[in-house]
């Protein structure tokens, strides 16, 4: 574990928290203009982004362990620590959150009660980043639950027609899942205390706990219940189309791009490390759910007539790919899964932002009411095309690299799951191209012909996303170099805990095909 003198991660959490507080206080004062409050919020989120970029730049590519660790003991009786750290799995999720919050704040402003909205968003940013950098399980749980509060108020306060229903469903559903998680965390900690006499919630310490095989499976299921709902993984997904569709644009972006990653992140960071044997034993179940989610999500997306719900179901399919790569337990699969978390976040946030802009212009998401928009709004159409193609998995854009790694990694260990999942590639093209044709192609009618093209401000907002989408498609090396060491150590950990190994070609490539030389 490497540490730095400056408490980067603590500041990363406290900066948006302080911003939220400041914005809330400023907003309460009548004489401060709304725009000023909004820009204060944006400035705070940009400062957070700057700091996150510094962390990513200073991140060492030589170690797979946690970096930037800060560890402060709290209630010693409770064994809870303010223990923070990032590794290759969490680094880019922090960065993703830091990139998307300013874009959501600038690109998806609300018309009503902006100060409260900005304050909730900043609190949400604090909670998201806090979840990704906490390596004390109770602290993680605290932030994991904290995300619910601002998300609930954002959906119910600024959402669309069925926002109350969607917010309640979202809240109750995910809250029920987390109940299992809390119980699981406590059980793990107490088993660990029985074995070592130390009560701690620190992930690196708990990794060495031994469980009975039945107990490990139950604990795995308890943790995974919370994460599977959050991701969502089929069949725990039905809160997500409602929540994504009814949330305001900024909310949909963050919910699908960042919050959903809490689920897959939890599986990768906690399930696999704490319960490697159960993870491997239950891999066929998880892989099957993943594949079903990929195909099912895509097929249901084909039947959607509402753009937001269509993207929601396509998200379900993409989360399936992440789970697939994770439970393949190969270097390529896991690396692809981690990379896909970042890529899916970027792509889906861009899609929801663009759909939100279409709604601003046309007051509808219904595909049947949109037509021929490419004629009056060519730039919007062009940007949408790039994002859509990234989502379909066109090589040269970011989605492909992760999809290829996931599928090729899965093929090494679970061939037939990979074969079925690859068919999902066709389906993604089917519903996205259909939607594009309905919305942007065809002869434009009177109502659609006055659609405004993207303003310069909007182009500036979306440009960073497009640039990153293209860059990561052409040159993913900087990201992969930071992910791989952690994935290697994770694979090694799983391998040694389960006394299995991944196929030699996964690690060694062409050298893995040579006959093993017997040491004499």
């Amino acid at each position, binding site marked *: 574990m490497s540490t730095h003198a400056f408490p980067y991660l603590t500041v990363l959490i406290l900066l948006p928290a302080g911003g939220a507080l400041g914005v809330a206080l400023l907003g309460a004062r009548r004489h401060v203009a709304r725009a000023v409050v909004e820009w204060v919020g944006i400035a705070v989120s940009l400062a957070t982004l700057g700091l996150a970029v510094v962390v990513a730049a200073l991140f060492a590519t030589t170690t797979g362990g946690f970096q930037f660790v800060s560890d402060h*003991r709290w209630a010693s009786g409770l064994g809870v620590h303010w223990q923070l750290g990032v590794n290759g799995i969490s680094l880019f999720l922090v960065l993703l959150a830091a990139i998307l919050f300013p874009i959501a704040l600038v690109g998806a402003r609300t018309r009503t009660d902006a100060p409260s909205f900005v304050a909730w968003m900043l609190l949400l940013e604090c909670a998201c980043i806090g979840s990704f950098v906490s390596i004390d399980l109770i602290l993680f749980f605290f932030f994991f639950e904290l995300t619910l509060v601002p998300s609930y108020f954002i959906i119910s306060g600024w959402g669309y027609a069925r926002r109350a229903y969607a917010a309640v469903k979202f809240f109750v559903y995910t809250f029920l899942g987390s109940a299992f998680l809390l119980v699981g965390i406590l059980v793990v900690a107490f088993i660990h205390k029985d074995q070592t006499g130390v009560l701690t919630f620190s992930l690196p310490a708990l990794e060495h706990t031994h469980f009975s095989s039945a107990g490990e499976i139950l604990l795995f299921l308890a943790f995974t219940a919370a994460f599977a709902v959050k991701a969502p993984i089929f069949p725990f997904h039905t809160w997500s189309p409602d929540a994504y569709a009814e949330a305001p644009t900024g909310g949909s972006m963050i919910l699908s791009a960042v919050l959903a990653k809490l689920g897959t992140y939890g599986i990768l960071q906690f399930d696999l490390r704490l319960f490697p044997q159960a993870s491997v034993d239950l891999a066929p179940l998880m892989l099957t759910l993943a594949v079903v989610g990929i195909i099912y999500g895509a097929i249901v997306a084909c*039947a959607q007539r509402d753009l937001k719900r269509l993207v929601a179901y396509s998200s379900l399919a993409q989360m399936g790919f992440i789970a697939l790569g994770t439970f393949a337990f190969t270097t390529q699969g896991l690396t692809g899964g981690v990379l896909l978390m970042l890529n899916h976040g970027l792509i889906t946030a861009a899609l929801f932002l663009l759909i939100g802009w279409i709604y601003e212009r046309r007051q509808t998401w219904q595909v049947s009411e949109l037509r021929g928009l490419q004629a009056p709004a060519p730039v919007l159409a062009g940007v949408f095309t790039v994002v859509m193609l990234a989502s379909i998995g066109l090589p040269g854009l970011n989605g492909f690299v992760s999809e290829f790694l996931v599928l090729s990694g899965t093929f090494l260990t679970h061939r037939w799951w990979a074969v079925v999942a690859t068919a999902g590639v066709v389906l993604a093209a089917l519903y996205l191209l259909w939607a594009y044709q309905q919305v942007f192609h065809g002869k434009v009618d009177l109502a659609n012909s006055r659609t405004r093209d993207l303003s310069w401000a909007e182009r500036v907002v979306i440009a960073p996303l497009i640039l990153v989408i293209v860059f990561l498609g052409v040159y993913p090396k900087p990201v*992969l170099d930071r992910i791989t060491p952690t994935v290697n150590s994770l694979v090694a950990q799983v391998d040694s805990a389960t006394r299995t190994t991944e196929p030699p070609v996964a690690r060694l490539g062409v050298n893995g095909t040579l006959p093993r030389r017997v040491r004499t």
Partner: protein
Amino acid sequence: MLHAAFLMPLFPLAGFVVLLAFGRRIGEPFAGWIGTAAIAGSFVSACVTLAGLAGRSSAARSLTCSVSCGTAAQPHAFFTWISVGGLHVKAAILLDPLSMTMCMFVTGVSMLIHLYSVGYMKGDRDFTKFFVYLNAFVFSMLVLVLANNLLVTFVGWEGVGVCSYWLVAFWFHRDSAASAGKKAFIYNRIGDVGFLLAMFLIFSKTGTLTYVSVFAHRHLLSGGGTATAAVLLLFLAATGKSAQIPLFNWLPDAMEGPTPVSALIHAATMVTAGVYLLCRVNPLLALSPDAMWVIAAIGGATAFVAATIACAQQDIKKALAFSTVSQIGYMVLAVGTGAYVAAIFLMVCHACYKGLLFLGAGSVIHGLEDEQDMQRMGGLRRVMPWTFVTFLTAWLALAAIPPFSGFWAKGDILTNVYGKSLPLYALGLLTAFFTAYYMSRVFFLTFTGRERWRETAPDGRPPHHSPHEAPWAMRAPLVILAFFAVFAGAVNLPWVHVGTLDTWLGPVFGSRLFAAHQSAGAQVGLALGDAVVAIAAVLVAWRLWRRSATRPALEPAFLRRVWYWDNVYDAAIGRPGQALARAYAVVVDARVIDGAVNGAARLVRSTATGVRRVQTGYVRNYVLGIALGMAAILAFMLSRTWWS
């Protein structure tokens, strides 16, 4: 001089970037000239590279050496694209006689068609965007051809696919064009699944995707049907891209694109990518005679089916599209026979004469104000002399009349097929008859007979008044391509054995090359047979179509409706698929899965009699409770930190 290979893809990439960024400001026609100049730069680089490659000994041009040169003296890699665990993929170039041959005709034909487009697209609202797409296409095509590994080939493969999507749907306000673009993309995606799975399979067995390493370790693929599976998966990809059975029916619809696109992408270059891919992996094909038989059979069948359909089309571009499908069928048949050189030979000749046929058709369509129905043409030879003469050479080349190029290329294939299988040879010869027949029909309907464009159409469309010859920018490419349509056969004459395509490509295909083992006498006999069949077909067509424009007996609905292929797909896959999606969305997701969730919630609510209040208020309080509780815990812990 081999360094110029780098410039080949970079020129069109630069053109793409410049036109994308400044195209609208540059405007018509300069944007078109910039696009054309970029491809011309690419063509010159290709020529320089060719000179460099030809200057080496034949052994030093071979596949392995060009890579060992790549690692030592000339690093033929741009950068490392993906490197995870044992998977290493570089953006690198593989230069060998095969990729060089492809680059030459791709850049050459592209340059001519860019020039033609400056004239053809004149006045179009999206003139500059057309060249943006066209340059992106050439870049992708060169990536496809030059890649040194399967994954980068796939980048180009998908790149040309998406450019094809954009260009087919170029006039997107037409619903038919938009649908055709989507159809092309999705059919190709189905094939791409094969490509992806083949890569997964090859990587899992050999641990690499680089061509040279895969070939060096190909013994790892033999046994257990692995090689057969890998080859057939790649062939599935090829059937998508190269419009073969069972994925061929996107190509006729793709004719919705502007005619230069049909000429460049859907005749000369992109659609032959599948054949190129199979030739590229020929060492793998050699591992699986079973797969080769499948390839040969599908190629032969496609050639025949598409040729029969082409006999009954009324739309000039549709007729040419089915002709393309049929001709690629011949190439695939050649690949399945192991006659790779013959396949490449036909590919080059076909690029010239089929590109020319489309450009000629475009000139006719342009002159008749977007008329594509051959019923409304006829007698155009007097009005469009340049188009007439050049189209005539292309017709004779495609019909395989000696000594035009098509005769030599197709003869080469048929001679090889004769050595492999008599039934396939018979099918090929029968197809050759249909080929000469449908092409002659198109020619007579368009350029001879009554001037039907002067008349009001049966459906009431008014006559065309002033058909006119195309401007010089469109005529010059016609003349240049006509030259090659006549003389391209000279690169591989059967009795020459020095400096031919055979000897040039020999190192790539090596000893696996199935030379035609027939005696000189048999070869002459086969060639005579080809010639007789072709000439007979032309004479039959001359009798039937010289004067009359409709013969319903010879254009049955079965052929006009493409053997009902689309209808079968729609009934078997399209409609059930839609029903399934609706059922999943409306019944399974909304009622079953979500119903279970909501049902459980209702059950809890009805049992918890104490909670009678509106659900929203209830949860809102709950959320606040959590928030306050968390704040209290946080405050407590912070205080402990600071005071302990």
